[in-house]
């Protein structure tokens, strides 16, 4: 069974068709890329999957079951985590607290134990802290654990968003332009990092990125969107040679 399946998904904002008849299947364990020019509907597609935008038509299925009508926190609890293109960190909280909020659904403790600070409560709480610090460590953010998220550099903020998303122990990770604002060497590191977290956490990754070489080198399969429609689908090699993709990116020949 496919982990995630989109069937004929369409989104209309008034007269604008942001997405139209999009079919996609994402398999367990793969790194699946979404390419496309600005305004092609990539982020809208992420918003539909994560429950922020309701599709006007079509169905999104998670392990075969429809996600229709589920609010975004319910979808997050099913194991779908995401990052945001225009960074949405909790800016008045420290990096550590950001990751702890990401652990929300696993951090539940009996209210009375929390009030009385019982031994088991404190043990569990310090265990969560260790887990959060380990995640920060993985993204080389351990030194900034107690700094406000707002004080981080742009690249660090992107990494913190990924750490926060991973904290919810997702099965599917949606990354919206994770390399934006990073320099070439950071982009290389990011590619290795995404592969490593996929293997370590047994993740499936759906990724939006503009940087074509990064995507061709990283993804198992790619889909290309243009004007809300899927114009190509396949392995990096197939997509690179696809005439429709070349036309969308370089313009049509006369």
């Amino acid at each position: 069974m496919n982990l995630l399946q989109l069937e004929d998904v369409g989104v209309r904002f008034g007269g604008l068709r942001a997405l139209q008849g999009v079919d996609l299947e994402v398999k367990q364990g793969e790194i699946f890329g979404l390419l496309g020019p600005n305004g092609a509907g990539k982020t809208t597609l992420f918003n539909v999957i994560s429950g922020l935008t309701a599709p006007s038509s079509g169905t999104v299925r998670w392990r075969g079951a429809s996600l229709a009508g589920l609010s975004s926190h319910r979808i997050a609890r099913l194991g779908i985590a995401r990052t945001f293109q225009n960074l949405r960190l909790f800016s008045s909280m420290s990096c550590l607290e950001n990751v702890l909020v990401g652990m929300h659904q696993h951090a539940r403790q009996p209210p009375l134990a929390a009030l009385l600070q019982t031994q088991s409560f404190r043990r569990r709480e310090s265990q969560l802290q260790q887990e959060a610090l380990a995640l920060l460590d993985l993204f080389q953010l351990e030194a900034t654990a107690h700094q406000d998220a707002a004080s981080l550099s742009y690249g660090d903020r992107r990494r913190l968003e990924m750490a926060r998303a991973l904290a919810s122990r997702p099965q599917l990770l949606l990354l919206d332009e994770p390399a934006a604002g990073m320099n070439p060497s950071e982009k290389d590191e990011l590619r290795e990092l995404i592969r490593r977290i996929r293997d370590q956490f047994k993740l499936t990754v759906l990724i939006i990125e503009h940087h074509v070489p990064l995507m061709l080198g990283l993804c198992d399969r790619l889909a290309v969107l243009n004007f809300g429609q899927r114009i190509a689908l396949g392995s990096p090699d197939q997509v690179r040679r696809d005439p429709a993709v070349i036309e969308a990116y370089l313009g049509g020949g006369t």
Partner: protein
Amino acid sequence: MDAGLLEQMLLGALLGLSVYLPLRCGQLSLATPGFFAIGGTVAALLSTRVPALAGSGSTYPITSVLLEMALAALLTGVLALGLGRVVLRLRGIYLAIATIALVEILRVVTLNLEFTGGALGIFGIPQPFNSAAGYAAFTLALLALICWLCDRLEKTRPGRAMAAIRDDELAAASQGINTADTKLLAFVLSALVAGITGVVAAHFLNSWNAKLGNFDASITTLAFVVFGGSRTWLGPVFGGLLLTALPELLRPVGDLRLIVFGAVILVGPLFFPQGVITPELFKWFKPRIGGITTAAAQGVKQ
């Protein structure tokens, strides 16, 4: 210091905490005086109309006050649960307007109902304490309890969820936080604090009428939090204590006092846009106080 003024200051701190709870979750609710008025009315009615509560001694029994507080908490809690579901769909200033309307509706209803005493209100509310100092001690214990609960809340999972919603509601929902329920929790807790504060205030003031929960009170209690700060529970406590005391302490300057009071409220946010009490203040203080306590601890060991 005059114990009567101290009691008013402590009540101010409690009301500040009531406004603070939803605000820490990013919700600007001005419903606090409404729930305060409900608590006061419950206490006034029960203690003047139910002879069984009066007891046999010369003073009104404290157990009856505690019972009134439990009933007021139940009533305001249930009401906040129902109202919150509806009004918390509104955001920002629209929520503020809806909650002001709620306060006004309650005021007009209290003013026109017969059993709440109409415009005159309810008189001769029995006294559980013989002196203002007794009230102050009781209220101080109540304030300490609620501060402790707020402190535990801030340092645990629901408190982190509230702060996350304040920073970015959409991102909070994407972390699996049920934002509607978390905001409702903050709103209900706020109503409970206001309700039980109303019970204490009714006994202390000896009479209760519709004027005690009005729009002016909404703005004054909001000023406690804006002035003190809404990042930790210490902010509204500080703001409530200081801004309640200030008009009284300024009595010697005569008619100028309201002008000075207004100026303080204006200057506060100008120089301390986050409020006077902020986490940065703690960071500044902590190494100093921490250093002293560690040194003291080492001294004890030696």
